[in-house]
């Protein structure tokens, strides 16, 4: 029992926030589920709609882009599908992260809870969405079997990294957008833009190997898009494709730098968020 409470801007309090939030698993676990059930309440199929809409989107765009690029459907469709499933998770963390505190204004102003509770709730909800979408991935194997091997198990640590990064992105964006509200719409449009800059509907390796040298040169610029690396570390193992170490290195570096920044922001501004919302 300390004689004095740690100062508001200490590392201790920032870490305490994350730990205390984690200890309220029962609360955010329940709320995350409720968010999902809520969205589809009174519909007959319920959360299965998540699965269905993912299947329809992936099927339609898979067929469309297979035609446009002249690719085989058995290549294009699984690529688009896995890309979309991963993208849904990434974009969900970013765009919902930008409103994680402003959307919970009522709760923040009425209940003394760690900030991280809202972030855990968001991540849990996105993980549940992801799990629903995985059903489409499993069904895909009936029509387009992929050659999975031991290296495919890398998909698990890859997803763990996606979640860990989603946590800092949501926490950092949440804090910043609460103070500067203009960043919320900006984030939404940037996410839209990133969808096109990330290889989801177009196949990265195909463009790199393009006969047209200027196309190939331009495709190489995508290496600067951090989301490319996040996409690659999980999509390659899920489709049984060759994996590259550099994507892992980039993602791990982003994880370390991102969390460093976020902890600093949390230390400084944690106590300010309830004033700003």
């Amino acid at each position, binding site marked *: 029992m300390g004689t004095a409470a740690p100062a508001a801007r200490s590392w201790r309090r920032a870490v305490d926030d994350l730990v205390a939030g984690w200890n309220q698993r029962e609360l955010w676990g329940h709320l995350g589920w*409720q968010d999902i059930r809520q969205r589809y309440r009174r519909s007959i199929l319920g959360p299965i709609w998540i699965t269905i809409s993912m299947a329809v989107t992936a099927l339609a765009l898979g067929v469309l882009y297979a035609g446009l690029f002249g690719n085989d459907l058995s290549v294009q469709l699984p690529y688009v599908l896995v890309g979309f499933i991963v993208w849904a998770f990434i974009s969900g963390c970013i765009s919902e992260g930008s409103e994680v505190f402003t959307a919970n204004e009522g709760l923040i102003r*009425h*209940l003394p809870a760690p900030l991280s509770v809202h972030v855990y709730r968001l991540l849990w909800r996105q993980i549940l969405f992801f799990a629903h979408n995985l059903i489409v991935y499993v069904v895909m194997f009936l029509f387009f079997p992929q050659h999975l091997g031991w290296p495919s198990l890398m998909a698990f640590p890859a997803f763990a990294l996606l979640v860990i990064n989603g946590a800092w992105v949501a926490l950092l964006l949440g804090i910043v957008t609460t103070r500067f509200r203009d960043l919320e719409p900006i984030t939404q449009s940037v996410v839209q833009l990133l969808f096109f800059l990330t290889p989801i509907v177009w196949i990265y390796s195909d463009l790199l190997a393009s006969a047209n040298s200027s196309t190939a040169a331009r495709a190489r610029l995508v290496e600067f898009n951090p989301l490319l690396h996040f996409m690659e570390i999980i999509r390659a193992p899920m489709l049984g494709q060759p994996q590259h170490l550099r994507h892992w290195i980039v993602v791990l570096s982003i994880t370390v730098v991102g969390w460093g920044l976020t902890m600093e922001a949390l230390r400084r501004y944690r106590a300010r968020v*309830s*004033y700003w919302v």
Partner: protein
Amino acid sequence: MSVSEDGPLVSITTKDACVDFPIFDAKSRSLKKTVMGMVGGNITTERKVPVIEALRDITLSLEHGARVGLVGHNGAGKSTLLRLLSGIYEPTRGVAEVRGRVAPVFDLGVGMDPEISGLENIVVRGLFLGMTRKQMEARVDDIADFTELGDFLRMPLRTYSTGMRIRLALGVVTSIDPEILLLDEGIGAVDAAFLEKSKKRLSELVERSGLLVFASHSDEFLRDLCDTGIWMEHGQIREHGDLEHVLAAYKNRTA
């Protein structure tokens, strides 16, 4: 968290605690004319972002067993003080230390979801107040009895009338075991017979709690539940002491 499980360690200590609200969207020019109104805290304009000094130099020491009534006119800082004491607002200057599990009841409806059933809402609301799911499930029957809602508890909350919602919220709130209970008025709008019943439950709740701070405009309610009083004015503590004494001073001033 340094919150202790053993009851008697419940306490709230603040020293020179201040709560300053930055107002980002207000034009500082137009605000210059309205510094120091009769209502509300003080607005300073020296800084780039105008700041409302909602609370100033709050020094308090509340121990287990404290039953404090909070009086003051609108905008005097009662609700902000409750939020400071609950830990929602950490002081911008000075210190505040809260020991014990806080159950803040500022808004009966917060955390209630219109789309889910009354029963589910009981559990969710309880989780928000720091209870566990098991504890809440054990209390459902008691809450159902108290609210007299019967089979309606299985219906979604959106089908409830305002009065029914308040009954449900009050039923949940009064069923918990708080270490620190912070109440903010707003306990009207219930029919008379029910009010009588909820008064009894409310005083039982207060007896179970380790520490109570209650903001209200009703002298009757305050006398029922509290023994000491704090009079807030312009974000500062004007008087702190015996409830009757504080109430009398407050009445004299406003009359």
